[in-house]
């Protein structure tokens, strides 16, 4: 009986387990279906999506950086070159312990605090996986060797070579060429990032900025297969980059260096233009700075020194320094007066050493020469001797509108250059301008000031040089340019908005040039020292711009005045007289008198004209 019960129990138990097993079987089947369905979903339904993902994983497109276009002077001398530079990079995905790695690197090479700070900021920016972060640039040979020797202990540390901009003549061309630097955040927003794939530098200033599109070139691309550690296994596809276009300039290295030397120790600018082409031969501003500092990023200390200097080395005085053009303006106003019929070559003005406004005796203007030049001054005399009284009279009778019009035809108040970066237009004043700027009406006294190139009128040395060139070319405009591009192959094609030409008979131009020759070569000329014993004839005009005004009846002695309050000095001229090859404008802040500038201009002209090869 007990045995039967036992057997019954056993059968019952067997059935119990069997029933439970059936339930388990059902669950197992459901789970298998779930797994198979999941695999089917991933492998068949979403197959395309995951194929793309897996390809993205292993295939990387590496941009091939184009070589930036080179810049040559007119004789083919390299002014902006590309040199290899070795950078120390960290691939963060492969660095196990950043502080340790940094500590190890510090023991091998010198890493400045500034470089570490910069590295920290770069670390925070977004980047692709395995995209390296720059720690130090421009490694020396020794540093490269030290890192190579310790390579096995430095996981994720890499050294790569890139080309960086190098300006072999440093400060000489800093203002005119500008410089390249790291692309900053605001530039990043403006540029077409596909063109800058792999490129880290961009033109910041000067020609480098103006011709950025041409100099940049076109990036290529390389498709590579990498493993998960970012190591390149093989190249799948290669599309070469297209280097940037090389620029050939009108600038002449020797003349530029010569001009820079002439300005040594002075604050000023020298502009030399070939009047036959408008090509700018020299464009110097002193003091200058070393543009190479900006290429890899200037340190804050270095930058502060330059920024805070009283001499403002960052200011391109030739193109952005605005000064009263002073007496250099007299030819242009004289020609304007002839065009509008206000004066003739025979018209004479008495010069007692001052001028009194006919309708307001209270306005009395001194001539720079005490006691006046002579009883009766003609236009020629007024140019040669730089007579202010004549031009007070001329300004009074010419009226503002005619003066404004004449100056406009010589490019004052305008940008008439083709490709000089960021020039300032200066001020060719008129009634509306004064109303807008000062909320005041135009007074007769204002006109008198403009008549001698003082008061509201402001111009840059480059503008004075261009006006002189236009005079040489008898009113015909030649566009001042830096880059030689006669076949117009460049992408950047700039055309300035030129004013109307002055319509005057040939004899007027000739007489004005004769008068300018008198400035240098006649016994009464204000720059008579300049022309002595010259191998060719020079024509020019001096100018002396007041930095601070002196009351009507006072005289002053230069040595009593602090250096920075002394007059600015101008000379603008051309040579050889018969067939001008060069226009030179010299400007020196607080240089006191234009005759000294004349001698500088003569040496520059000699350098150019007497040279065999140009």
């Amino acid at each position, binding site marked *: 009986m007990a045995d039967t019960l036992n057997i019954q129990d056993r*059968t019952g138990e067997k059935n119990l387990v069997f029933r439970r*097993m059936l339930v388990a*079987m059902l669950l197992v089947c459901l789970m298998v279906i779930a*797994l198979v369905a999941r695999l089917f979903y991933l492998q068949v339904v979403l*197959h395309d999506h995951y194929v793309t*993902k*897996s390809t993205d994983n292993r295939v990387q497109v590496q941009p091939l950086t184009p070589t930036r276009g080179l810049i040559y002077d007119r004789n083919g001398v390299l002014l902006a070159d590309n040199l290899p530079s070795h950078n120390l990079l960290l691939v963060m995905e492969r660095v196990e312990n950043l502080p340790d790695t940094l500590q190890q690197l510090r023991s091998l090479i010198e890493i400045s605090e500034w470089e570490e700070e910069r590295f920290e900021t770069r670390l925070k920016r977004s980047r692709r996986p395995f995209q390296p972060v720059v720690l130090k640039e421009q490694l020396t040979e020794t540093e490269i060797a030290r890192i190579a020797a310790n390579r096995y202990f430095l996981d994720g540390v890499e050294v790569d070579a890139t080309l960086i901009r190098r300006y072999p003549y440093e400060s000489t061309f800093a203002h005119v060429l500008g410089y390249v630097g790291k692309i900053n955040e605001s530039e990043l927003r403006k540029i077409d990032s596909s063109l800058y794939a792999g490129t880290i530098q961009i033109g910041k200033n000067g020609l480098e900025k103006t011709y950025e599109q041409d100099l940049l070139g076109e990036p290529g691309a390389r498709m590579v297969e990498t493993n998960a550690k970012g190591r390149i*296994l093989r190249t799948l596809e290669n599309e070469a980059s297209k280097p940037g276009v090389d620029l050939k300039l009108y600038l002449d290295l020797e003349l530029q260096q010569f001009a820079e030397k002439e300005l040594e120790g002075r604050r000023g600018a020298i502009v030399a233009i070939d009047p036959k082409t408008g090509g700018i031969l020299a464009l110097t501003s002193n003091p200058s700075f070393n543009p190479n500092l900006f290429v890899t990023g200037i340190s804050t200390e270095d930058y502060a020194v330059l920024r805070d200097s009283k001499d403002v080395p960052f200011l391109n005085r030739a193109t952005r320094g605005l000064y009263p053009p002073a007496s250099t303006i007299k030819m242009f106003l004289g020609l304007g007066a002839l065009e509008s019929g206000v004066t003739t070559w025979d018209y004479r003005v008495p010069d007692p050493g001052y001028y009194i406004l006919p309708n307001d005796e209270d306005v009395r203007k001194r001539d720079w020469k005490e006691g006046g030049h002579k009883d009766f001054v003609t236009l020629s005399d007024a140019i040669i001797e730089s007579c202010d009284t004549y031009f007070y009279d001329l300004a009074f009778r010419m009226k503002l509108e005619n003066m404004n019009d004449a100056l406009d035809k010589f490019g004052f108040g305008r940008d008439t250059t083709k490709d000089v970066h960021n020039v300032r237009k200066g001020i060719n004043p008129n009634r509306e301008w004064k109303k807008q700027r000062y909320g005041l009406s135009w007074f007769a006294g204002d006109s008198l000031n403009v008549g001698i190139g003082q008061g509201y009128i402001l111009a840059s040395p480059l503008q004075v040089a261009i006006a002189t060139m236009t005079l040489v070319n008898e009113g015909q405009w030649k566009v001042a340019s830096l880059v030689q591009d006669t076949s117009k192959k460049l992408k950047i094609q700039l055309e300035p908005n030129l004013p109307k030409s002055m319509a005057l008979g040939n004899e007027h131009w000739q007489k004005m040039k004769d008068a300018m020759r008198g400035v240098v070569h006649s016994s009464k000329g204000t720059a008579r020292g300049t022309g002595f014993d010259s191998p060719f004839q020079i024509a020019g005009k001096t100018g002396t711009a007041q930095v601070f005004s002196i009351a009507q009846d006072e005289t002053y002695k230069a040595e009593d005045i602090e250096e920075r309050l002394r007059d600015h000095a101008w000379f603008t001229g051309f040579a050889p007289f018969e067939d001008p090859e060069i226009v030179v404008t010299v400007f020196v802040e607080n240089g006191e008198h234009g005759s000294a500038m004349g001698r500088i201009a003569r040496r520059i002209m000699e350098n150019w004209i007497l040279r065999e090869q140009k």
Partner: protein
Amino acid sequence: MFQEYVRSLPDLDLHGKPPLSYRLHVDMPLLFLLVVLSVGGLFILYSASGGNVAIVEKQAMHMGLGFLVMFIGAQFDPRTYARWGLGAYGIGVVLLISVLVMGKTGKGAQRWLDLPGLPAFQPSEIMKIAVPIALAWYLTREPLPPKFKHIFAALSGLGVPFALILKQPDLGTSLLIAISGVFVIFLAGLRWRLIFGFSSIILSMIPVMWLFVMHPYQKQRVLTFLNPESDQFGSGWNIIQSKTAIGSGGFEGKGYMQGTQSQLDFLPESHTDFIIAVLAEEMGFIGAALLISVYLAITIRGMLICIRARDSFGRLLAGSLTLTFFIYVFVNIGMVSGILPVVGVPLPLISYGGTSIVTLLASFGLIMSVSTHQKI
């Protein structure tokens, strides 16, 4: 109806001469399936390890050892195991405690025990076998279904190793051991209302576990499972890469040793826990489905052995070990394909790893013992 079905099952001829395999205590269908799986596993491992012969050789040696243990284990009558069960369980608990006291630390968890004169091993592996034996023995001392107090005692006996292994911490193993015990209790005939009762208690425990018991790394795994893209280069990397490997394999696969995800190291742990992704990438849906069929066949064979076992102890033991084996497969493939959170569970007989293979084949030794000891 069930009774009739069970009676109709072909009984072994207990009077005639039993076949050779029976006398050798080898279950031929099960052996065949296990060998197929192991050999296939070595081929997958060769590709997954990037053609590393040394790893494959080592794995083959582990398999050889495992099959030897299985063969020896099958020779003993299940009743012998029933006698040893409680002792093995007791030793296991002592070893687990000593692991916590003096164990070796690896990958942030104390799992290994390095006793003098013995190779380093994980005591939790012992428990994978000892727990089902001990519970099956305990519950079959009295007629099934078990009484509530016995169930309570069984659950308490299960709770001790679970807690000790969880403490190491090794969530995956502790859960699998718990599941193997739960299977014993389930097969023993735990009443459905108790099953639902316990289930709801466990469900309501989840928030408590989350707040007080789980380690931050475990919580991170769950969060990553819910949204792997939230940290795609960190904790989400593994699962994103394994899904990409599986998905890009497509229906036919990229070809043996041609998987870019696995061969170019994008897939982490490709020769251990994530090895199914290598198979799925290189052999496609067909390969993965084939592998799952082999696992299913082994599971069904184990279930048959369970049903046809001589006594309830054998049934509970073989049933629990078989179902636990299947759970390994499900959890591993589920986590690699992104339907379960990542817990460190190897793919049986495919993933590289010595201890787990030997333990697993040892458990099949027990199943074979049940299968080939039918005489009363």
